């Protein structure tokens, strides 16, 4: 057995250990990616639900009612509107 053979053997062993290590890491990363995918889907769903909720909160009816009842606002009368040209 030459020294060269010994070096090769060492490299083979090291490479196989690294292969195992890389495979393990790949598996971990895959799991992490899957988790993130699921999270992203969950957030998408939540976003969509929030959009619907916001749409329900900003309907003309509701805003007008709140403005009139809670804030005591009223639609401007024509004489209260001052138009000007830009």
């Amino acid at each position: 057995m030459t020294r060269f053979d010994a070096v090769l053997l060492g490299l083979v062993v090291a490479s196989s250990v690294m292969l195992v290590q890389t495979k393990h890491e790949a598996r971990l990363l895959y799991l992490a990616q899957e988790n993130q995918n699921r999270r992203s889907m969950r957030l998408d769903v939540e976003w969509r639900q929030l959009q619907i909720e916001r749409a329900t909160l900003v309907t003309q009816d509701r805003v007008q009612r709140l403005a009139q009842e809670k804030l005591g606002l009223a639609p401007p009368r024509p004489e209260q509107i001052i138009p000007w040209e830009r």
Partner: protein
Amino acid sequence: MEQKSINPLLVLAIPVWRQRMVVFSLLCLFAILVLRAAYLQGIQDEFLQQQGEARYERQIEVPAMRGRVLDRNGHILADSSPVASIWADPAKVRQWSHEDLSRLARMLGMSTDELGRRLEKGGRRFTYLRRHLPPDEARPIMGWPQEGVGVVEEYLRFYPQGEAFAQLVGLVDVDGQGIEGLEASLNSSLAGESGKRLVVQDRRGRVVQDSVWVERPRDGRDVVLSLDARIQHIAFRALEQAVARHQARAGGAVVIDVRTGEILALANWPSYNPNRRTGLDLSEVRNRVVTDLYEPGSVMKPLLVALALERGVVKPETPIDIQGGILRVGNHSIRDVHATERALTVSQVIQKSSNVGVAKIALGLDPKDLWRHYRAFGFGTRPDLPLPGVAAGRMLPPDSLKPIEVATMAYGHGISTSLLQLAHAYQAIANDGVMLPLTLMRRDAPPPIDEMRRILSPQTARQVKAMMELVTQPGGTATRAAVNGYRTAGKTGTAHKLENGRYVEKYLASFVGYAPASQPRLVVAVMIDEPKAKSYYGGAVAAPVFAEIVGQVLPSLGVAPDMPGPTVAAAQRPRG
């Protein structure tokens, strides 16, 4: 004899027993493999096949997300949200241990007793425990160790704008397919296409391992409408109040942008809440503005006068003898409701809404020309809108028009139209005689030139507009269509309703007009069906709704008032 190089191994004498031993042990190993294979294939095959089937790959369908319906400013009119429903097989769940049952109850956020009641109440083999949960909350159920519970994932449609848009936007059925309104007519574009995913499922059909997409789902496309949620709400509320005030049966209103042909609001009453779909009444689902036909009455008069002006038969100041308000045509007589003076100018005929006046003008016209003229305004032609049940309306055949038919057509009887068609005709007049195609979709560019149609010369259109402005001024039939700060114009209509071919003592009050009169921006058409309290005239019932809508919408669109009004000083005066 000289030996060169002899491998020492070759010289070694190997005993025969050693050779045989190697061959024998190899054969033994081989025999073990054969026996093992035979055992698996022959004796244990059933068990293994079961195990294999339990973990097989399968294509499952992944539903596409339905597109949203948005108004012109991006407000959501309809949107879907994924939800999960938890079901149980009561027969199986009842066999669970008490421990498992209480664990499930805890998961569902209910007491064990309540869970028991739910299981009793539902079907024998299938019952919903919870419906329409956020998908996250149902997740633990998906991996439930015992058999008997599961999760269905579905989409639920939400309509944040509620009843104001109910008939227009429509509804979807339990499977998420459109069945009413735009949801139905635009279904193919909203629905998208479902995809397929390859997954590994276990014995109970649970997804054990996600794998690749065979085909990704193509989500439905969003639809951006020309409608403006603000204007729609203003129109809907104004309509609702008027219907209540006059104890009417129903009502409709439509708002069109004069310059683009876009429909900005399309409201109906009665309405329903599309988010609660139990106990739907068909009369609430109908989009009356586009599907219901009626005899429009006096609203048609400006169109007739426009033709007479166009043909040079009369001028706005031509006097018409209205003969005390009665005109005999054949053995029928036509009467005026508001008759006072003996002679009216053509302008006053419109202002006072004289039936006799327009009938006399009509009798001086070629019946076929009149028929073609009405046809050009779109009557008897189905408006090209993506809505179910859009009505075309009816006109008498042009070849056999009798004088009495011509006379009644002049004041809008013997012809049936939808409110939308009337509004469209008025769009052409307000736009100086050029009719634009109507649309429910937002127009980001003006409509193509070849789709615009000139129906009246600009001069004629302006003369008719001047007459219609008189209607809302003192002395006109619709002084209540006047709006503070803006000049308005339009025409009232009060039509007798036909039932089984006879006119009955039921009325349909309408007003179609536009504003600001100096530079028309909106056409607003209002129809109130069978007003009962006090008055039933278009000027008293429908015109105030027009004024209400115009008075609120124009300022909110930033349209400058065109009527000289109080000065700035008045604006700064504190409210009384």
